C-alpha cells in the first residue's frame, strides 16, 4: 500500500471541515455576510437609535449617564473592578461642593420651548370648521344662503371700487401737472395718453379737473 493512497476513513474526513474553513465561494459568502450585516443593522438600528436618543436627551438635560449594572458586570465583574455599591452612590457634585444642575428646571424649559413650538405647529394645522373666521354680517354656518340684495350690493361696491381706482390714479397725475402752475403741450400729451390707457372719458377728465381746482 502506498502512503498516498487514501483509506476509507480518510475519505470521510472533510479537510475544509477539519480546518474549519468555509467551502462556499468567496463572492457568495461575502453577499451572505453583507445580508447578515444588513439584517443586524436593521435590528440594531432601532435599538441603537432609541439608546442614542436617550443618551442625547440625557446629555442635553445635563443628566449623567447610568450604565446598566448587568452590562457592566458582564464585561467586568464589579467585585473584580474594585467598585463598591457605596462608591457608586457618591455624588461627584457633592464631592466637589458644586450645585447639581437642576434637571427639572431644564426639563420644564424644554417643555416650554416645545409648547411654544407646538403652538406654531397648531397654527399650521387645519383647525376645522369650528375655527373658521366669521366676518361681520356673515352667518357662522356659512351654508345659509346670502340674500340676493346683499350680493348685488357687494357687486356694485366692487364695480365702483374698480372704476374709482383709475380715476384716483388719473387725479393724482393731474394734480402733478399743476405743480409748477403752468401747463405745457408735453404735459397735455401725457395726460391724453393716460386717459386712453386708463379708459377715462374727456367728460370725466373735466369733472376731475374741476374737483382738483375747486379743492
Amino acid at each position: 500500500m502506498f502512503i498516498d493512497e487514501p483509506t476509507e476513513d480518510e475519505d470521510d474526513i472533510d479537510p475544509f471541515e477539519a480546518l474549519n474553513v468555509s467551502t462556499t465561494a468567496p463572492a457568495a459568502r461575502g453577499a451572505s455576510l453583507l445580508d447578515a450585516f444588513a439584517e443586524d443593522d436593521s435590528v440594531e438600528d432601532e435599538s441603537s437609535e432609541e439608546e442614542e436618543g436617550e443618551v442625547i436627551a440625557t446629555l442635553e438635560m445635563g443628566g449623567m449617564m447610568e450604565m446598566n449594572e448587568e452590562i457592566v458586570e458582564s464585561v467586568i465583574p464589579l467585585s473584580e473592578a474594585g467598585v463598591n455599591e457605596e462608591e457608586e452612590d457618591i455624588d461627584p457634585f457633592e464631592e466637589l461642593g458644586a450645585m447639581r444642575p437642576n434637571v427639572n428646571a431644564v426639563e420644564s424649559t424644554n417643555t416650554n420651548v416645545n409648547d411654544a413650538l407646538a403652538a406654531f405647529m397648531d397654527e399650521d394645522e387645519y383647525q376645522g370648521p369650528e375655527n373658521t373666521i366669521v366676518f361681520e354680517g356673515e352667518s357662522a354656518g356659512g351654508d345659509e344662503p346670502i340674500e340676493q340684495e346683499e350680493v348685488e350690493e357687494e357687486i356694485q361696491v366692487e364695480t365702483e371700487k374698480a372704476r374709482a381706482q383709475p380715476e384716483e390714479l388719473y387725479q393724482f397725475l393731474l394734480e402733478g401737472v399743476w405743480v409748477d402752475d403752468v401747463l405745457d403741450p408735453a404735459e397735455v400729451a401725457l395726460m391724453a395718453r393716460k386717459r386712453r390707457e386708463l379708459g377715462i372719458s374727456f367728460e370725466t377728465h373735466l369733472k376731475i379737473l374741476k374737483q382738483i381746482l375747486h379743492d
Partner: protein
Amino acid sequence: MSILFQHALDLAWSDGRLSKRGAILLENFQEILELSDSQRSVVEEKHHLQVIPHLIPRGFGSGASTLDQWMTSLMDLDDELPRYLVSMGRQSLETGISKQAWIEGFAAAERMKCEFEFARGVWEPEFEVEILNWPKVLDPVAKSLGLLLEED
C-alpha cells in the same frame, strides 16, 4: 370770478359814472351769463373797492353805450364763438397756460356755453384746431389767458 361781467362793469363805469341805462344793461347781462346775485356781488364788490376809487368822473354814464355795443357784438358771434374759443385754448396752451388762466378762461367759456370746446383746445392734442385771430370783443378772455398784455 367772471371776467366777462367784470369787463361789462369796466365799460359801464368807463367815464367814472354809471347811468341808469348802464345799470339795466348790467342786469340783462347778469341774466345772459346766468350769474347768481351772490356771484355778481363778489365781482361787483371787488370792482367797487379796486377800480371805482381810482376813476375820475368825466361824464354822465356814457359807458352804457360802449357796454351795449360790446354785448351786441358778443351775442352776434353765435356759431363762431366755439371756434374762436377752441383756437384761443390751443394758443394759450402753446404759450403756457397757468392754473389761474385756465380757471378764468374755462369759467368764461362756461358762461358762454362753450366750455367743452375750449377744454378740447387745451387738453386734446389730437384734436385738430384751426388757429384764428380772435375778434376784439373776446379781448377780455384773451387777456385772462395771457394771450394779450393788460396794456394792449
